[in-house]
């Protein structure tokens, strides 16, 4: 009964508004613009946030990067990654001993010219790694060919996987699988092409890479530790084709020969090799903090650090980056939302103004309605419903316009846009709220009129 009566009041209100459609339209314009702005903001905001989430997920939000710490001498720091403390065994130990780490792989990096026939190219990165890397990066499915396996890593086989950008640069239309390329004069057999991944958040082309067993890169290409990353510029010692040179001479200089006494004193075996970084992945996003803690204690133990010694490595997780970025987008969205809310407020004042005019104009009608039995609350109800209906109509138009605007942005600017049901609900509630708040005073004024004076009003 009550609902039917309210519905009838709403229909009466709509009829009253239809008597002056132009004015109703102009009155509600503020609401239309406000709601349209809110909806467009929310949709574009939600779109960029979900795009961000997607990017982060594709990068692997759970990924932890463990790098060697900073070497310093006499107060002079040499920058991140200048100590050589991480080993492939560390990577295995992390995988074995940390329950929160689902996967880990050692990585070495190189930068060098790649040659095929009469073409050459310097890829963004040459990564030496293990097959685990492919599963961490969701690259198990190749466009063509086969991934390298654990045995290739153990043997230091000269095989590699090309990123699609690199494959296109060197081979154009031809399939690279089975072909030989040369990295710093060392022949590698291409055994597969990676699936395209696009650029990452920083604009780094993740398709412009070579993946190879880390042993191969480490001993045949880099020849040294990571301290000389840019190999293409100072490759004098490596310019000779060192096909069978498993242990290049430069390696020896890093480890000063120990005397037999020293060896006896220190039973720790000489480290096999050091690597540039370990890429580990936490079993899920909520475990990242635990994983970092576990990795820290495992590595500190393995590196035999005393309690008062600082870490000789550092662990970075993407979550930090993720939250920073999404906080920034959310901040932007909220700011724009605040502006849109102000516009709604202005719209509300417009509604109040026109409702006051309407009450004055319809004084006789109010008197008549009172004479035929309308109580004060009936009049209040009628004008309140009218204001709310006006706002809701404006809100509905605003939703359509805002959504249309979002679609246009998607269509013309290619921005990610996402329909946001919560924004639509909020818009409906807010416009109804604006109607109630700003419609109340005029409606209350109408309800307080004296029937005789209202009837006599000219």
């Amino acid at each position, binding site marked *: *009964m009550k609902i*039917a*009566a309210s519905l*009838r*009041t709403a229909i*009466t209100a709509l*009829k009253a508004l239809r*008597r002056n459609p132009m004015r109703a339209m102009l009155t509600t314009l503020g609401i239309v613009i406000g709601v349209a702005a809110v909806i467009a903001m929310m949709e574009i905001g939600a779109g960029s946030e979900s795009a961000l989430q997607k990017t982060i997920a594709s990068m692997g939000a759970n990924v932890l990067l463990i790098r060697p710490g900073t070497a310093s001498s006499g107060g002079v720091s040499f920058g991140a990654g200048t100590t050589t403390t991480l080993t492939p065994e560390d990577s295995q130990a992390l995988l074995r001993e940390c329950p929160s780490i689902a996967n880990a792989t050692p990585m070495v990096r190189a930068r060098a010219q790649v040659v095929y026939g009469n073409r050459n190219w310097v890829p963004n990165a040459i990564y030496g790694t293990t097959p685990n890397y492919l599963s961490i990066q969701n690259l198990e499915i190749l466009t063509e060919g086969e991934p390298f396996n654990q045995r290739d890593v153990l043997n230091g086989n000269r095989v590699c996987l090309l990123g699609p950008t690199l494959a296109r640069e060197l081979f154009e239309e031809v399939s690279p699988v089975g072909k030989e390329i040369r990295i710093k004069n060392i022949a590698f057999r291409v055994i597969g092409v990676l699936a395209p991944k696009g650029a990452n958040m920083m604009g780094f082309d993740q398709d412009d890479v070579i993946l190879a067993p880390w042993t191969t890169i480490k001993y045949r290409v880099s020849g040294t530790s990571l301290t000389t990353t840019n190999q293409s510029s100072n490759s004098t010692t490596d310019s000779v084709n060192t096909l069978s040179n498993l242990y290049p001479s430069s390696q020896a200089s890093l480890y000063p020969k120990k005397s037999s006494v020293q060896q006896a004193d220190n039973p720790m075996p000489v480290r096999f090799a050091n690597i540039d970084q370990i890429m580990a992945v936490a079993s899920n996003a909520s475990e990242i903090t635990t994983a970092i803690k576990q990795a820290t204690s495992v590595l500190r133990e393995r590196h035999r650090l005393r309690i008062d010694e600082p870490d000789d490595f550092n662990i970075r997780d993407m979550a930090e980056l993720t939250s920073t970025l999404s906080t920034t987008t959310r901040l932007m969205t909220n700011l724009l939302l605040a502006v849109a809310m102000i516009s709604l407020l202005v719209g509300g004042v417009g509604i109040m103004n026109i409702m006051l005019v309407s009450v004055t104009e319809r004084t*006789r*009608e109010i*008197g*008549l*309605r*009172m*004479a*035929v*039995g*309308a*109580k*004060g*609350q*009936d009049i209040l109800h009628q004008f309140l419903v009218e204001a709310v209906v006006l706002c809701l109509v404006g809100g509905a138009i605003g939703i359509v316009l805002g959504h249309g605007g979002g679609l246009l942005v998607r269509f013309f600017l290619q921005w990610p846009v996402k329909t946001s049901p919560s924004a639509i609900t909020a818009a409906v509630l807010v416009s109804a709220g604006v109607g109630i708040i700003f419609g109340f005073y005029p409606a209350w004024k109408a309800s307080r009129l004296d*029937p*005789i004076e209202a*009837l006599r009003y000219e």
Partner: protein
Amino acid sequence: MELIKLYAIEKTYRMGDFFVPVLKGINLTINQGELIALTGSSGSGKSTLMNILGCLDRPSAGEYWLDGEAISRCSANQRATLRNRKLGFVFQSFNLLARTSALDNVAMPLAYSAEYLSDKETRDRAAEMLGRVGLADRLHHHPSQLSGGQQQRVAIARALINRPPVLFADEPTGNLDSHTSQEVLEMFEQLNHEDGITIIMVTHDPKVALHTRRIIEINDGMIINDSTNMRSNRNDDMTSRHNDQIDTIKTLSFNTAAP
């Protein structure tokens, strides 16, 4: 049967520091089924009295009983309900809602009384009322598309939609030409005669007053004359029909109240 009883009704308006007494002690009894003209010169207080009778206004002093209820003690909401259920109003200036069909105009009071009616029932009832005032073919006309007489008939249909026992009309013919006035007055007589509706009509026009059987004359806020109109157009056949209709119009006692 007594329908309305006024005892020592006074109304005083306050204009700044002045008190303007408009009604100065009105005593009046009206029985069910009467057709009454309230006459008097302009500014004598007819409309003021009528507003009090119509429960639109409250007297400054005195007692008013309508159908046994003491109106002087009713709240605004109670008076609104009373107006809705028991009273109908017809105004000089019709007071129809502009740009609203005759049907919706007539159905308007139902929004405050008969919320249980469906839309269709509401429309049917409004259409029936318009039929009774002879506007069955003008249901969807807007006031601007109707003549003055037709507009006033729409207003009468609106006043009758809740089947009130009493109808108040303040100068109902004031805006009409003599021919349409005649029509409206005949309609009042018919409603009074056939449906037993008590009608109290304010007019300053003696010719209009002649259509009624009881004429109450007010001057300067006092009733100066309350007489049975023996020359009423229908008086003769009314008295002859009186006996037949004694059930519907229970008592047609032409009692004269003390001035």
